[in-house]
């Protein structure tokens, strides 16, 4: 999603927005920015890995970002909105995060067409706008969706007052493809035919949120590895070739994904609190076949300060069936090679490669529980200073049996959020 994307999907909306300035001269420009420094504490790192983008050497880039939003009222209920963001974690490549037209059909119904944020969770709509909440970033256990936060599609909204309650229902049909940076590697992710239902119910200081979406997910990296293994096995002996069902367990190719989410938040002025639960289930998938995350947060405000405490839990298990297929194939291949008298030939090497180590992407399961203390100081009407300390307990590959590893990384982040 580099700048060239601008020309593809955003130009029309931008052009529409700019054109309207000439006539209506009501182009609104709003901006937000975050500048953060963070580092993982000495002896509290995960060896050879970054933790939430940070290592023991301090980093000014990962959570630093800049966003500009252009909105123009085109009259007769039509609004054009474009949001450009540049994030330090993507080398400040400008990205057209949003580009949509909104049409107010009636008092209660509206429709948005184009690239927009998926309202998965309570803070999703404004999750990049640090000024809008007291964390540095909302708990990544729940909020990190690996680039699927936005979608290209159409969303209908129904907004109505039910007595003292305000109800907002959103229906989404969308499709998105993203290149997401996971650690060292870029993953191509396609999330197609996404159908979603989102509901917010607000009563006084309380907001309740519910999410249900289904979509078809394709992750190229799994398909490359899975198909590679299939070819290796077939080359060793056609009898070892993977069945369609087995291949399905090694690949993420139009796999059905179900997202479920529920959240409750309250803001009583002095006290603020939120709790959310999210679950992602992928059918016959090698990883994250059952991913669950939740957090509880409470904050206390006095003067210009907000002190917050968050506990977050995450669990993404390996798929036992995937591990079983690989293990069985490994044994079969080894026996096959032994029967053929192979000891040190090509097939044995192939087996070694295959099963000696089950590829890491099939053992990416992880469990973690983190405590975060955050302090926000509103030292200026348009700027907030934040300090955050996170202590995590991470268990990697928990279902594997072999090579289970435990770490307790601790991260400190300090910086400023602005809006203008």
């Amino acid at each position, binding site marked *: 999603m580099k700048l060239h994307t601008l020309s593809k999907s955003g130009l029309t909306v931008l052009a529409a927005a700019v054109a309207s300035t000439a006539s209506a001269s009501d182009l609104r420009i709003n901006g*937000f920015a975050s500048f953060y420094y963070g580092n993982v504490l000495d002896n509290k790192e995960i060896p050879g890995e970054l933790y939430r983008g940070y290592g023991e050497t301090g980093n000014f880039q990962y959570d630093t970002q800049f*966003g500009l939003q252009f909105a123009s009222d085109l009259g007769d209920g039509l609004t054009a909105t474009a949001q450009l963001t540049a994030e330090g974690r993507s080398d400040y490549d400008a990205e057209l995060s949003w580009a949509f037209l909104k049409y107010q059909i009636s008092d209660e119904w509206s429709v948005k067409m184009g690239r927009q944020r998926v309202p998965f969770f309570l803070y999703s709509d*404004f999750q990049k706008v640090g000024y809008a909440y007291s964390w540095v970033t909302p708990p990544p256990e729940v909020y990190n969706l690996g680039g699927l936060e936005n979608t290209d599609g159409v969303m209908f909204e129904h907004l109505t007052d039910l007595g003292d309650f305000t109800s907002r229902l959103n229906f989404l049909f969308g499709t998105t493809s993203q290149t997401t940076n996971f650690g060292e590697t870029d993953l191509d992710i396609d999330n197609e035919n996404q159908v979603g239902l989102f509901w917010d119910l607000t009563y006084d200081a309380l907001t309740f949120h519910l999410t249900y979406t289904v979509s078809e997910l394709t992750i190229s990296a799994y398909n490359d590895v899975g198909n590679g293994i299939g070819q290796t096995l077939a080359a060793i002996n056609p009898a070892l070739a993977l069945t369609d069902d087995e291949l399905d367990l090694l690949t993420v190719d139009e796999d059905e994904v179900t997202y479920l989410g529920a959240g409750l938040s309250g803001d009583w002025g002095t006290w603020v609190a939120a709790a959310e639960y999210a679950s992602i289930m992928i059918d016959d998938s090698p990883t994250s076949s059952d991913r669950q995350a939740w957090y509880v947060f409470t904050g206390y405000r006095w003067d210009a300060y907000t002190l917050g405490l968050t506990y977050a839990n995450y669990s993404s298990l390996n798929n036992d069936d995937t591990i079983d297929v690989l293990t069985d194939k490994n044994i079969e291949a080894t026996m096959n090679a032994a029967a053929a008298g192979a000891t040190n030939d090509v097939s044995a090497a192939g087996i070694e490669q295959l099963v000696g180590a089950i590829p890491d992407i099939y053992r990416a399961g992880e469990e973690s529980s983190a405590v975060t203390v955050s302090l926000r100081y509103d030292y200026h*009407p348009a700027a907030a200073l934040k300090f955050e300390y996170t202590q995590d307990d991470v268990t990697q590959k928990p279902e594997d049996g072999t090579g289970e590893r435990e770490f307790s990384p601790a991260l400190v982040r300090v910086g400023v959020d602005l809006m203008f």
Partner: protein
Amino acid sequence: MNIVKSVRVVFSTVLLSLFSVASIAEISVIVHPSNEAGISDADIKKIYLGKSSKFPNDMQAEPLDQKEGSDVRQQFLGAAVGKSEPQMKSHWSRLIFTGKGVPPKSLDSDAAVIDAVAADPKAIGFVDSSAVTDAVKVVMTY
């Protein structure tokens, strides 16, 4: 000792009253004289939080804000909306960046708000009560 004590008392009383004078000026919420909507505390709060864009009689409402950091604004937000300036900013940042709302237009002075309200049947604003003129109608005081 007694003199020192009473000087202290007098001094702190003076300070206290100065402080009160500065911070307890009365605020009036004003609309166009033709506005017949029965406007309640809750309506004012909803309109200024962007939760409603209409008066209770279904007429479009155009809320007007005052300069950030001004006494009149801080007092109005505290009393009528129940939020501090940073909380209000944070609240609006959520609406702005989701395309759900546009914050009330900000004007520079009580006089500017009175002029704007007097000229627009849809307008609603707040001013220091001492600045109110016949050109506008007071619907609430805080």
